[in-house]
């Protein structure tokens, strides 16, 4: 177990190192940040000053070396745009994205699993068919379009919900959250639903497939024959068996939701990390892009680790393997 963990961590460090090289070279190829940041009317002397101020007059390897030695001391550089530490910028926007992503994941589990169970247990009922039909829409409609439609209907036409923005926040553990106030929840409703839609459909379909696959199996028949109540068969025996793929997918999706909620955050003007990264890419704010991607790599590594650990809890066979 310890060697396994250690190996994973070394892999993670290597992945992050490779990531920095790729991003550094990649961003350098896209274009020149000074061209984008500087006022168009700046003359040549001012341009040269800005290049030097941002440290871009140095050769690429030297810039990279400086970054790397800074990173080892926990300093991922300062944003070209905001003149603040890149990590601080990301940390400022993280709560907004986290609460959105976690709400979306909760929605997809709370709605997806029961609906999937229903569709799996009653595949030929009208309800079951309707759920499956709707789920196709759930993952095939583009997020930005659904977002705009939600705004058109619930904000512009009906006026029930605010159209964009994060709304009021309240402090908890020194961080500002908007799920603690009613108005904050109203602001969160549409973006969270929009973000969750695809995942609800995904979880729903996975659950249904799992149920359909497991119901004819011997252990279900045996449990029934033993006289265990149908509820216990479904919610304890079957559910436990189908949870493995669902946990894997939900785990990966959490990462995806946190890292790439870009579209939803843009449409709803939600001040989260996704918006930060897309804005940073647009102006080639190199330190922020690099810091952000490194953090995302770390995030995925950690989530995968947690998912692997969850397997051992859920599936005794995995537990046995790791013991050996």
């Amino acid at each position, binding site marked *: 177990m310890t060697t396994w963990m250690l190996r994973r961590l070394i892999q993670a460090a290597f992945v992050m190192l490779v990531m920095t090289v790729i991003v550094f070279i990649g961003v350098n190829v896209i274009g020149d940040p000074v061209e984008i940041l500087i006022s168009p009317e700046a003359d040549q002397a001012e341009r040269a000053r800005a290049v030097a101020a941002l440290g871009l007059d140095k050769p690429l390897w030297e810039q990279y070396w400086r970054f790397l030695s800074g990173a080892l001391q926990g300093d991922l550089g300062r944003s070209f745009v905001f003149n603040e530490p890149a990590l601080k910028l990301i940390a400022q926007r993280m709560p907004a994205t986290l609460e959105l992503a976690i709400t979306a994941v909760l929605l997809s589990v709370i709605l997806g699993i029961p609906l999937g169970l229903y569709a799996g247990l009653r595949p030929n009922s009208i309800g079951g068919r309707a759920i499956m039909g709707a789920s196709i829409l759930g993952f095939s409609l583009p997020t930005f379009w659904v977002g705009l439609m939600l705004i058109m209907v619930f904000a512009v036409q009906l006026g029930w919900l605010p159209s964009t923005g994060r709304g009021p926040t309240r402090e908890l553990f020194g961080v500002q959250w908007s799920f603690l106030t009613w108005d904050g929840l109203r602001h969160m409703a549409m973006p969270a639903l929009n973000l969750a839609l695809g995942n609800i459909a995904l979880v729903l379909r996975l659950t249904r497939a799992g149920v359909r696959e497991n119901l004819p199996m011997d252990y279900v028949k045996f449990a029934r024959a033993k006289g265990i109540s149908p509820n216990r068969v479904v919610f304890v025996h079957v559910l436990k068996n189908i949870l493995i793929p669902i946990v894997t997918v939900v785990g990966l999706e959490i990462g995806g939701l946190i890292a790439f909620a870009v579209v939803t955050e843009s449409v709803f*003007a939600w001040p989260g990390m996704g918006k930060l990264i897309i804005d940073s890419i647009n102006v080639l704010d190199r330190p922020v892009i690099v810091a952000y991607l490194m953090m995302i790599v770390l995030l995925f590594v950690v989530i995968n680790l947690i998912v692997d650990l969850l397997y051992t809890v859920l599936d005794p066979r995995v537990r046995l393997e790791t013991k050996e």
Partner: protein
Amino acid sequence: MVAGRHAPRGVQGVRMGIRHWGAALLAGAMAAWTPAGAQTLTLAVAAAPTSVDPHYHNLGPNNALAMHIFGALVDTDAAAKPRPGLALSWRAVDDTTWEFKLRPGVTFHDGAAFTAEDVAYTIARVPTVKNSPGSFLLFTRSITGVQVVDPLTVRMTTRGVTPLLPVDLTQVHILPKGLGAEPATEDFNALKHANGAGPFRITAWRASDRAELARNDAYWGPKPHWERVVYRMIPNDSARTSALLAGDVDLIEAVPTQDLVKLRTDKRVAMAEAVSLRVAYLMLDLSRKDGQPFVQGPNGETLTTNPFQDVRVRRALSLAINRQLIVDRVMEGAAVPTGQFLAPGSFSYVADLEPPKQDLVEARRLLAEAGYPNGFRITLHGPNDRYVNDEKIIQAVGQMWSRAGIQTKVEAITWPSFIGRASKQEFSAFFAAWGITSGEASNPLRAMVATFDAQKGTGSANRSRYSNAALDAVIDRASSITDDAARERALIEATRQAMADVALITLYQQKNIWGMKPNLRYVARADEATRAADVSVAP
């Protein structure tokens, strides 16, 4: 009804928080909301300011926000002409000295009186800002000395004749000397140093999201109607329009052209528009003498000449364009066709220089005369995420050129990649736009028409590398005349020559369009700034 929607905590709490916890807890302290009140204005801007520090990043959105909080010696009116700001009057004492008489009785937000010392402090502070990606040095570099004559008189000596110094100073916001040596940008963003003499105080700042402003009751000018302003940043076009239609915001800037037709007839929305200082243009590469990377002969053969070196070809390309059609169909009326840099009414506008009318016969004749009877093939480049309808504009131009016998392909690419390549002369022809912040012709002439010369600082945006020594001399002379009337005459002459030689092809001036609730009025501005103080309630 113009009420804030959100009502929880008071602004007082924010300031307390910041005082106690400082910058470290900034993220935490910034989230208090504006109390509901009849005099709260919520507006949405299209581009986010990057800092509260008025000298950190020379960028339109930053300067627009700074206008609310700080204030410069010289202000500009809605038509972008200079008018008294913190200075009451100014005059050129001699060729290299300007004297400014300051407004008496002005105080900063902290109560300190505004004097000539603050002006000297500000000019000295500009070059000390660290890590600036776009410095305001651009506007103060010509100043060699600042002399405080008395508390309300300040003299500036300049390197060479600098007739535009008052115009340059419209961008330089005055800070109180009480901020001490080299105040840090981060401390402005933490609102510790955000102390100016503007109509509003800033009470909260959340980068890329919102700023909150409270009226400065001691302001020297007309008192703004709004006690509080929520200054939201919504760059996404459709999100901005929906926020207005849903009533979440009271006023938006940069109404997207695709919504114009709908909104103009919508009773829930009032509009205000003004012709802007942003001129859209095409540039043709003149850096090469032989051949072009994106131009081939009519049958795809390689050319050994650069057709654009011939003024007849440049003129033909200009005549092939139907500017009115582009304005009506692509821009939905949110622009005016032009054949020069500025719109009517501006300083140095050339009254008798009409926008060229489309004339395909003449265009073909000119091409044949220049030795291209069968035209040529060309790729026209442009950005696809920078200017209003940029991609559609190049498609329209491409079709018009094709009708004149020039087989045109268009290629739109993302701005970060586009601008770098354009600056390296990688394109044969490209579309872009230029915001004339000074509101007069010397700015585009020096930047885009004058020969590229790093020593002189001219031609910094002359990406076509057009070079005409005779015209350079006219531009140089025009930009060093102190007398306004004489300078305007010289600039008109220079503009006329540049357009006759088709140094670049100007297409149209964009319009700035604001949308707001029907009970509001806004004084539409030629610069793109949204000023909360200029928003009023209809009588």
